[in-house]
């Protein structure tokens, strides 16, 4: 192991691989920041290019991209309330309010630091867990997936920003949308109205582009002005305040990273759940939960630490079993196969040097991306000071092009535009958009694993209660739902009330 590790480090610090790494990180940052584009698109576009490269170089390039994408996505989440990718959505909650208060620099500083550290913790988790990876992956069958999805859904209740009923309504709407399309289990089409585009269901990325990027631009255009409404004379030097905040909130960082790495390692759940769970946990454990959503920097730290830590985690099922944890990982598997690397338990033994090369590249890229972000922060912040009359047309066009670039499918553009209107109406009438997104992501996972569980047990519900991991997750669900109520009761009993 140490030999392979040293070899990987030696290879990584050559001029050639450092340039590939920088190139990958740059591409990752850019593709991450543009809503709609993302790691999946970047990797898919690069597949033909890596064809002629040797595997080491291809792996370094891919590692750079995977390391750069998550932080790139947090930039647009903070500056424009537009997550670059779904896992960045939780960063919007507090990152954007900070930007509106003129504290975008601090938010970027915190996101960059949390991203880099989270990424490194994720990789460390992966290295620690690889020897027992098989046991972990085998523990998660359909009943466990179902419980995990429900746990994610229960985060809706705490992500509503105090508007529980409205949150549940939009969550319910998201669940309805999640069931559109071909039913993989039963084999029928549902609610597609004869539209072929809907066969694959409501696509997450165009929905996100619409709900956030386009809706936000419509909303801003109706009021005019600029994103930052704080005093425009404020200096932009708060970046390092953000860095310091991360070290002042180490428990949030560590918890977020652990949640990210763990959820990432469970195939098929993905980064969105990781960052939401981390965010909602930080909120629930906070002494001052009401400040979340109003620009609490802990929200940014929790979300971004988890978002970067998940990559290390999700390499476990991808490499060890060839089961992609996300769309991005699915394309990554293609890169591996094209270079003759068969994913599976033997990959880790036969190509140890390549795997360590990837891990090192991923770690270094996380750090590189964050440093680049810190250096560029003062210029990026200018976006929030740009007049909406110029900002809105540019962001809207880029967002719609991003929607098209995803699969070269015009249906995605139409979907993004429709979600833009829905998103604007939700903002206008004060319905939380994020609960819709959580439900859209988790609805189909919950449904599929529920049916699969019952097929496994010949229709007996006991399967959900007789497996230790499922039981543990069920306990967590109960705790996460009961905790806010308990807090309320204790507060009333003690009569402190925190001045509400």
């Amino acid at each position, binding site marked *: 192991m140490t030999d392979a590790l040293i070899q990987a480090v030696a290879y990584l610090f050559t001029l050639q691989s450092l340039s590939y790494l920088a190139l990958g990180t740059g591409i990752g940052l850019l593709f991450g920041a543009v809503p709609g584009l993302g790691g999946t698109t970047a*990797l*898919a576009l690069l*597949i*033909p290019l890596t*064809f002629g490269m040797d595997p080491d170089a291809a792996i370094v390039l891919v590692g750079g991209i995977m390391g750069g994408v998550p932080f790139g996505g947090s930039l647009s989440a903070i500056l424009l309330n537009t997550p670059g990718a779904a896992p960045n959505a939780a960063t919007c909650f507090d990152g954007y309010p900070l930007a509106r208060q003129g504290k975008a620099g601090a938010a970027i500083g915190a996101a960059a630091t949390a991203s880099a550290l989270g990424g490194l913790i994720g990789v460390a988790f992966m290295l620690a867990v690889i020897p027992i990876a098989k046991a972990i*992956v*085998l523990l998660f*069958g*359909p009943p466990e997936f179902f419980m995990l999805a429900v746990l994610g859904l229960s985060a809706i209740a705490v992500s509503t920003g105090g508007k529980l009923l409205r949150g549940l309504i939009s969550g319910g709407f998201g669940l309805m949308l999640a069931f559109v399309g*071909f*039913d*993989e*289990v*039963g*084999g029928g089409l549902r609610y597609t109205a004869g539209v*072929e*585009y809907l*066969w*694959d269901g409501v696509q997450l990325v165009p929905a996100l582009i619409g709900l956030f990027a386009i809706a936000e631009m419509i909303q801003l255009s109706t009021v005019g002005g600029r994103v930052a409404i704080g005093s425009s004379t404020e200096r932009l030097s708060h970046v390092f305040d953000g860095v310091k905040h991360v070290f002042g909130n180490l428990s949030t960082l560590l918890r977020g990273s652990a949640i990210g790495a763990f959820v990432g390692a469970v*195939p*098929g759940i993905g980064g969105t759940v990781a960052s939401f769970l981390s965010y909602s946990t930080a909120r629930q454990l906070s002494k001052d939960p009401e400040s979340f959503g109003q620009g609490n920097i802990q929200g940014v730290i929790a979300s971004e630490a988890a978002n970067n830590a998940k990559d290390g985690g999700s390499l476990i099922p991808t490499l060890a*079993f*060839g*089961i*992609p944890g996300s769309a991005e990982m*699915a*394309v*990554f*598997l*293609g*890169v591996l*196969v*094209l*270079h*003759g690397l*068969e*994913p*599976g*338990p*033997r*990959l880790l033994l036969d190509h140890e040097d390549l795997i360590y090369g990837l891990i090192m590249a991923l770690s270094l890229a996380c750090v590189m991306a964050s440093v680049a972000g810190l250096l560029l922060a003062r210029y990026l912040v200018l976006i929030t000071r740009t007049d909406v009359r110029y900002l809105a047309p540019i962001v809207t066009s880029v967002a719609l092009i991003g929607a098209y670039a995803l*699969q*070269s*499918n015009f249906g995605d553009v139409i979907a993004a535009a429709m979600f833009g209107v829905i998103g604007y109406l939700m903002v206008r009438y004060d319905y939380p958009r994020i609960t819709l997104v959580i439900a859209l992501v988790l609805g189909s996972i919950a449904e*599929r694993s529920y*049916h*699969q569980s019952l*097929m*496994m047990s010949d229709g007996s519900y006991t399967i959900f209660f007789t497996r230790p991991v499922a039981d543990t997750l069920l306990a967590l669900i109960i705790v996460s739902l009961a905790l806010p109520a308990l807090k309320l009761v204790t507060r009333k009993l003690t009569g402190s009330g925190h001045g509400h």
Partner: protein
Amino acid sequence: MRRLTTKALGAFGIMLLSMTVASAQFPEDDIDVIIPYAAGGGFDSYVRGVLPIMQKYLPNDVNLIPRNMPGAGGRKGATAIYRARPDGYTIGAFNLPGLMLPEILGERVAYDLTKVTWLGRLSEDQYLLVASGSSGITSIEHLRALGRPVKFTATGAGSSAHAASVIAARMLGLDASVITGYQGSQAYILAVVRGDGDVALGASNSIGSYLDTGDLRVIASLERESSFPDAQTPAELGLPDLSRLSLQRMLGAPPNLDAEARAVLVDALAQALADDDLKSWSESVGLPYAPLSAEAARENFANQRALYEEFKDFL
């Protein structure tokens, strides 16, 4: 007379010349190759692997440009190939039986595979019936003696793996149910290792590493020539039809493809599939090709269609 002969010969010569010019004309431009699945999948890799080699054998230095068009379980891409102008500048890849099953099961699709111009077959993954190494199941007899329905795992309802599981179970006389909805072949194979179901049909390249570790055991081979000496074969089981179940990737073009374009494309594909560079690449990455000529691919399609038609009431 002599002048006339000269003239006639000259005219004949010009005619010949113009004919060769005409036949050298296709392709004048790059050719789009539609892949109805996402970039990076197994299907994508097979097609992208053969294109650069096939390109070498096309006249006029044109390019074969892969275009991924995923959507609606491959229906979107298949429809795009089917509806393209039959001038040879749009061809594409088809998954059998995956793209044939919707038609057979009575779904209205916008393409008709019986009219597609087949250019040849790229690959065929034959199935192995596997059970978890710790399950104690070692033979078909074991499965019959379970005293309860045998649980298969597979991808979505109506997929190739689902259909193959149902048909194999019927041929073997097993009372079976299929747990559907797994996202890809690796996922449903892992589901057997984990114990979600009893058995699954997997291609040898998706199960290889689990056999080495003892997580999976091959209890029967559905291959024509078994790569596992210990496993029961279709011939030994007295069920040669079992080996007709497989997962195939074919190249095809729109119906009524221009004859000249067809000749050029079929020839280039045949040469590519016999090329040593392709063979060595295919071995190095572990993606085995199983070439069939255009004519044989057409017969193969008819044979596959007949098989799934026969069992359509059980699917």
